[in-house]
C-alpha cells in the first residue's frame, strides 16, 4: 500500500522515450510517474463518456491496469504514448456505457436528450463541459451531434448513417468537416 510520503515525493521527470523503455521493463517508478502525470487527463475523457464519477473511477482503474499489462503492444511509430492511452481510455469508457450492467443501472436515471434530435447525448453537459466537450459546444448543432455520436459514443459511420437516416457518404463528409473545424479550435 502507498504511504503518504511516497505520494508526496518529488517526481522524477521522464521524457516519453525514456518512459516507454522503462514501462516496457515494468519499472514501478515510471508507472507511478505515468499515473500521476496522466490519470487526470484520462479521467476527464472517461468521465465525459461515463458521467457517474464512481463508475468512471472504475474505468480509470481498468485503463491503467491495461496500460501496465499491454505496454509492449504500444508502437511509437504509430503515434504518441498519450494518444495510445487516450484511445484505450475512450474505448474502455464506451465499452462500459454499452455493457449490460451499466445500462440496467441507468434505467432509473434521467435521460438527457440532444436538442430537437431524439438522439440521446452521451453525458450531462453541466458536469463535463471541459476540454474537448467544451470545444464541441462551439460547433454547430449538427457537427456537435456527429462528433458526439462518433467520438464520445463510439458509433461507426455506418451506424450513424442508419440512425440519422442520411447516406453514409454524407456522414463521412460531415464528420470530416466537423473534425477540421475542431482542429482550428484546438490549435
Amino acid at each position, binding site marked *: *500500500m*502507498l504511504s503518504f*510520503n*511516497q505520494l508526496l*515525493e518529488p517526481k522524477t521527470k521522464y521524457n516519453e522515450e525514456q518512459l516507454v523503455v522503462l514501462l516496457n521493463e*515494468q*519499472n*514501478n*517508478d515510471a508507472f*507511478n510517474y505515468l*499515473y500521476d502525470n496522466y*490519470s*487526470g*487527463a*484520462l*479521467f*476527464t*475523457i472517461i*468521465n465525459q463518456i461515463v458521467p457517474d*464519477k*464512481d463508475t*468512471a*473511477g472504475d474505468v*480509470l*482503474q481498468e485503463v*491503467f*491496469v491495461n496500460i*501496465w*499489462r499491454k505496454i509492449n503492444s504500444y508502437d511509437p*511509430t*504509430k*503515434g*504518441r504514448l*498519450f*494518444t495510445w492511452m*487516450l*484511445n484505450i481510455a*475512450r*474505448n474502455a469508457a464506451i465499452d462500459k456505457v454499452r455493457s449490460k450492467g451499466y445500462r440496467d443501472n441507468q434505467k432509473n436515471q434521467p435521460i438527457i436528450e440532444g436538442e430537437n434530435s431524439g438522439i440521446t447525448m452521451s453525458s450531462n453537459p453541466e458536469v463535463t463541459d*471541459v*476540454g*474537448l466537450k*467544451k*470545444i464541441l459546444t462551439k460547433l454547430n448543432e449538427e457537427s456537435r451531434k456527429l462528433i458526439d455520436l*462518433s*467520438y464520445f459514443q463510439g458509433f*461507426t*459511420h455506418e451506424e450513424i448513417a442508419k440512425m440519422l437516416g442520411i447516406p453514409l457518404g454524407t456522414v463521412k463528409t460531415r*464528420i*470530416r*468537416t466537423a*473534425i*477540421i473545424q*475542431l*482542429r482550428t479550435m*484546438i*490549435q
Partner: protein
Amino acid sequence: MNIQEYISSGVVESYVLGLLSAQERFEFEQFCETYPELKAARESFELAIEKQAMENALEAPAQVKERVWAAIQQKPAPKTSKIISMEPTSTKPRSFGWLAAASVVLFIVAGYFAYNYYNQNKELKTTNSDLQAKVNRNDSILNKMLEDQKMMMNPDVTVVNLVGTTPAKASANIYWDSTSADVYMVIKNMPKLPNGKQYQLWSIINGPGGQLQPNSLGLFDMGDDKKVILKMSNVKKADAFAITIEDKGNTGGPTLEQLQSMGKTKLQ
C-alpha cells in the same frame, strides 16, 4: 496522391481521435512511412490534443491509484534502492590437491571418449560409403525402370505379343513405338541356348506376292544374367515380329525352321 490535400482532409485528426476504420487506419500508417510531412501533421495534432487534455485534466478519484497497484499486485517503487554489501570474500588459502586429482581423472576419461569416438567415426565412414554405393546402384536401376515405364505408358507404343511356335514355348512382348521407331523387347520365357547359339529378333514385312521380307533387329543371349527388357534396333515398318535361333553372330537371313515365336503387328 496529393499529400497536402490528404493532410487537410481531416484524416489526420480522425486517425489521432481513433475515428478511422481499420482499412483507413492501415493506409494512413503506410502513408506516414512515405510522407514525413504527414507524420509531422499527425504529431502536431497529437501534441495539440495532449496539451488541451492536460490543461483540462480533472482530478482522478483518490483511491483509484491504490486500487491499480493492488490489481497489478505490485507495490509502488520503494524510495531507496536496496543496498547490497560488497564485503571482501574470505582470503583463507584453499587446498587444490583434490582439484589436481580430478583433472587427471578428467583427462583420462576424456582420452577414453576421444578414442572411442575416433573408432566409431571410422566405422561410420565405412558404413556411409557402403550405403552411398548401394544408393548409387539403386538409383541407376530405378532410372532404368522409370525409362522402361515411360516407354510402356507411351500411347504411341504398340504391344505385339510373340507366341511360342515350338514346344519350348519361347515368348516375349514387343513394345514398338510407331513414331520414334524404337523397339523394346520384354522377355517372358526364353529357354537357355547351347553354346554357339543366339536368339535373333526379326521384323517382317509382307512383300508383294506374299514374299516375306525379314529385317534383323539384333541378336541376343539368354545367359544367367539375362535382362528382362532389351532395346533392339529401330524399325519403321513391320507387319510381324519373329524370333529364331541362329549361330552366334549370324549375318545371314533367318533360319525359318528355327522359328521360336512370332506375332503380327495388326490383328487381322
